[in-house]
């Protein structure tokens, strides 16, 4: 797909849709003057728009819908795995009050390891020889663990010690304490951790495309391969919109499910 051509098509096909009217003539000039001239950002936004509105780009194995499904499948599986591992671990560690430094340091150390590096190394291991899928799932799950674990731990730890003592005084067992007292009180922070993990996951799943996986990132990398800036920008817009949508959905769910709204203000989580 030729970038200049794409921009010209957009300017003609959708008058004033996403581009300011003033940009349209400039775009036309730009595409006419050939690839040597530095492209106008507005022209490429128009090109991206026409890429997105072309139905051919949405169907088929390389289409947006298929890539979106792949993306959500990666994210869903990895979020499930991360929840299975990190939530119990964070809750138990927080309840026992041990290894807190470990949990927090793990979260910090995770920041230092580039996702791209871990994915690449895993793809080249024997694991990667056998399947395209598992190296990516393992890498993404590992990156989703720290925020969930750390927030669950901190949430459990921050429960008022007096309340815990009172519950113990009432004769609650450890299990009752966890499920009836600590967990309900820790809930806002736990939810914040899950949201942070999920958003990070959806964002990071984009990188799977760089190491040969699927997902929406493939639209971007294929755009680079085809040297089609409109496709690159269109893919980026799709990925960005998905990430922001996931953030919004989790944020709304958090609000809707939280029985005690006033405690919400406490739980601003760490971003990974």
């Amino acid at each position, binding site marked *: 797909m030729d970038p200049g051509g794409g921009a010209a098509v957009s300017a003609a096909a959708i008058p004033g849709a996403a581009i300011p009217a003033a940009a349209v003539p400039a775009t036309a000039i730009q595409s006419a003057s050939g*690839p*040597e001239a530095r492209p106008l950002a507005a022209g490429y936004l128009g090109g991206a728009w026409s890429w997105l509105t072309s139905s051919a780009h949405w169907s088929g194995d390389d289409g947006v819908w298929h890539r979106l499904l792949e993306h959500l499948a990666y994210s869903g599986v990895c979020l499930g795995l991360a929840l299975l591992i990190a939530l119990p671990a964070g809750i138990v560690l927080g309840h026992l009050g041990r290894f807190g430094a470990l949990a927090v340091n793990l979260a910090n150390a995770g920041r230092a390891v580039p996702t791209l*590096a871990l994915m*690449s*190394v895993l793809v080249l291991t024997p694991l990667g*020889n056998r399947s395209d899928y598992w190296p990516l799932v393992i890498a993404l799950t590992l990156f989703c663990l720290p925020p969930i674990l750390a927030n669950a731990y901190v949430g459990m730890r921050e429960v008022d010690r007096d309340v815990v003592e009172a519950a113990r005084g009432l004769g609650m067992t450890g299990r009752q304490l966890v499920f009836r007292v600590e967990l309900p009180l820790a809930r806002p922070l736990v939810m914040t951790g899950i949201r942070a993990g999920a958003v990070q996951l959806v*964002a990071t799943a984009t990188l799977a495309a760089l190491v040969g996986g699927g997902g929406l990132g493939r639209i971007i990398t294929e755009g680079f391969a085809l040297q089609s800036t409109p496709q690159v*920008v269109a893919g980026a817009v799709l*990925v960005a919109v998905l990430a922001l949508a996931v953030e919004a959905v989790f944020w709304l769910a958090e609000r809707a499910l939280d029985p005690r709204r006033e405690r919400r203000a406490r739980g601003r989580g760490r971003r990974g």
Partner: protein
Amino acid sequence: MFVKPACGKGGYRAGSTAPSMRHLTPRAEVRAGEGGAVPGTGGTGDGVLSAAGGGSNCLVANDWICGEYLRTRAHDLLDAVGQHLVLTAESVLAGIVVAIPLTLLARRWRPVAGPVLGVTTVLYAIPSLAMFSLLLPVFGLSPSLVVTGLTLYSLTILVRNFLAGLRGVPEDVREAARGMGYGPVRLLLEVELPLALPAVLTGVRIATVSTVALVTVGAIVGYGGLGNLILSGLQSVFKAQVLTASVLCVLIAVVLDLLLLGVQRLLTPWTRAAGQR
């Protein structure tokens, strides 16, 4: 070693072919490359693998850890580390320069605080690959693209920590300083800044460590420091290169973190007495 796209006019077209054409069929190449050929020669644009014939068994065997690789490619590795450090430093410094006025604005006018934090949070939620791609029409394939993207990410962390630091200054202290005749500028520089310093430097540390990791994604436009080596190593199934570059990446992050922690300790000796970090 790493692909250096010709920037300037038409740079995108000229430069992007080398790193990007392979994205179409990376898996296929991985399979093809496993036949036992000498890694690193698979048309990645790498330099000539001069030492491959000279009894360098670990290169031929494609081992994960390879001393011969370190010896023969030391120059490439140093280049990549240098690019990585420069990109990181530029991004974090630019982030600090932009974050300072934003923080002061957000603190001075309450109505600004919400939008500033909101916008930076939204920027942070945009995946790195998408961020770089969105900036592509503006900057073309250039280091400024990577630096701009990473600056926007570090802004979120920096503004939030700077604000938290300034808000953590006790009101009593401010009142006392005003009572002693401190003007707003002197108050900020001599009273509030020192007290906010731990939070400010923590923000700089976090921003630096995450920037070091994110620089690797810049490899998509050919300016990813060690990320370039990781990606080209992956495409030619060159295990030693991928592992070495990855480990170096983590090392850079750890070393920078420790360095900044040292600076933090030096500048804020009082926090040590209290047993905090």
